[in-house]
């Protein structure tokens, strides 16, 4: 899981540089920096045949699930070798059905009812598969969220609803937008099981997710898993997040999920610094390789685009 977190962190850092320093990439992009433990922890608890509905802040989900970096980076560059052949962009880059990530929507909250539908199909299939979906604190205020949660609860669908509560929906503080005390409290409205975990502690996330997944597999219905975490940077890549108080940012920096996990592993002698260094080196190389790959890839010719409107 450490490796996954490091991969996410370095990939996102590289992407940020491509946007801000190098000016190579343009457009909206929502980085996963700071939230690595949620994706790495939750997704690691899934089986290979479980399914995921991601979001526009999905680079982390994709990497945690093992989507290769090359097509991810190529999609950000809008190239034909990208996960969506360059037609989707950053907000849909995690769509990778080959690894079970069925969709990523740019509309806040719209993935929730879709995830319920995925759960419905899995329930029908009867193979004890589970659907997992991610969304932020802001999404829990949308109509689609409520409708999807309610339906999942009423039909006891095998879905784990993971809320990545990073305390801010863009610049709107969660405590100003959410009527309940916490996101987890919302589950009560649907009589759905709720769990909460420290979103910056990858092991805690993993254990909670594992429990929620197991419940779903047993047919005991959905769980709302609230993971409290924090974004290192703003909502989108250009957002400087000056609306966040400096002390708060500092406070959370001290709780960096990667740093704390590395420290724990080193202390418990489950890993050595040399291993960590080796991982960093390999990750750096594969991230750089993905940039080279992306830069040298072609773009789809426009004439081919109309082939993608309908399935034939």
């Amino acid at each position, binding site marked *: 899981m450490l490796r996954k977190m490091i991969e996410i962190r370095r990939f996102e850092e590289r992407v940020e540089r491509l946007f801000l320093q190098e000016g190579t990439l343009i457009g909206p992009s929502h980085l996963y920096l700071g939230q690595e433990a949620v994706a790495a922890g939750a997704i690691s608890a899934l089986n290979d045949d479980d399914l995921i509905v991601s979001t526009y802040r999905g680079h982390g989900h994709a990497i945690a699930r093992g989507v290769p970096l090359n097509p991810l980076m190529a999609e950000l560059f809008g190239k034909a070798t990208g996960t969506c052949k360059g037609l*989707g962009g950053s907000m849909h880059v995690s769509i990778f059905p080959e690894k079970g990530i069925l*969709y990523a929507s740019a509309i806040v909250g*719209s993935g929730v*009812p*879709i995830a319920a539908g995925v759960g419905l*199909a899995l329930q029908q299939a009867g193979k004890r598969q589970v659907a997992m979906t991610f969304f932020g604190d802001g999404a829990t205020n949308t109509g689609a969220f409520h409708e999807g949660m309610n339906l999942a609860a009423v039909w006891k669908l095998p879905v784990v609803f993971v809320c990545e509560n990073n305390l801010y929906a863009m610049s709107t503080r969660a405590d100003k937008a959410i009527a309940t005390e916490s996101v987890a409290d919302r589950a009560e409205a649907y009589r759905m099981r709720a769990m909460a975990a420290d979103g910056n502690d990858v092991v805690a996330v993993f254990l909670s997710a594992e429990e929620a997944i197991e419940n779903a597999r047993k047919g005991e219905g959905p769980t709302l898993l609230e993971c409290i975490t924090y974004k290192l940077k703003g909502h989108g890549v250009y957002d400087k997040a000056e609306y966040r108080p400096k002390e708060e940012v500092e406070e959370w920096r001290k709780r960096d999920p990667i740093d704390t996990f590395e420290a724990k592993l080193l202390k418990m002698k489950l890993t050595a610094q040399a291993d960590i260094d080796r991982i960093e080196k390999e990750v750096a190389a594969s991230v750089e390789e993905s940039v080279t790959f992306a830069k040298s890839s072609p773009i789809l010719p426009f004439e081919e685009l109309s082939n*993608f409107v309908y399935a*034939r």
Partner: protein
Amino acid sequence: MPELTYAEALRQALREEMLRDPRVILMGEEIGVFEGVYKVTRGLLKEFGPERVRDTPISEAAIAGAAVGAALAGLKPVAEIMYMDFVTICLDQIATNAAKMRFMSGGKLKVPFVLRTQYSLGRMHGAQHSQFYPSIFFQVPGLKVVLPSTPHDAKGLLKASIREDNPVVFVESGALYRTKGPVPEEEYLLPLGQCDIKRKGDDLTIVAVSRVVGEALTAAAKLEEQGVSAEVIDPRTIQPLDKNTIVESVKKTGRLIIASDDVKSGGIGSEISAIVVEEAFDSLDAPILRVASADMPIPFSPPLEQAYMPNAQKIMEAAKKLIG
């Protein structure tokens, strides 16, 4: 050949497809226990059980969204939105998500589901329970939009829509549910994206959809008595539209009327009109006329609603304007 009602024809289509393919499931409000507000799903809950015929809460976004998700994950859901007016509640799921998913994913995703809905224009349901506006979907390519006008067409088109690999918005006409028509006993499918020439003629082309097809045929019969031979074309699918059949017909007759229940401005007629001017300009012997609903919300009072809607009389008046 047996005569079935439009509703019964739809019911048979659903049932046959559910028997044929276990992946087909139904979801919607009141479709199970109540057997559907228009009885289209009568008996299906009993036959297929609650796993496959699912009554939902009043959650259009969830109904449409869950249908999308289930389709992504391998099922073939047929979701019902009780009134076309409610489609706007779940427009995000249909227009922003479903229509675009294949394209946005570079062709990786397939979303094979049918969204059945109906419009009740003509039944005094008032402004918020009568709207017919399939033309909004012209703006989000990626969906197929199907409009059956007879029991025969309804069955064949619904079966074909369920077997489609693309999201289909299937718009039924509430006013037609109780109308009867011949429906073959053997299995048949009707192709999507192809016009049906319901009546051949030489002097005038009338393109009509859904409920108005009947009105157009009535008008055509009356015009025949006056020596005017009208060709009536039912596109059946407006997206993708079989424009060739329409263009060839106009090249033959030189005159075109487009008749539909949607509001005139920005309706189906506007799009077809533009296509025909572009592709058959030199064949036009007269301007193109649209016979459609008035540019206003639907009035409740029955005679006012009738005055608001298109009918055979209005089609004939348009024909007179063209021919003189």
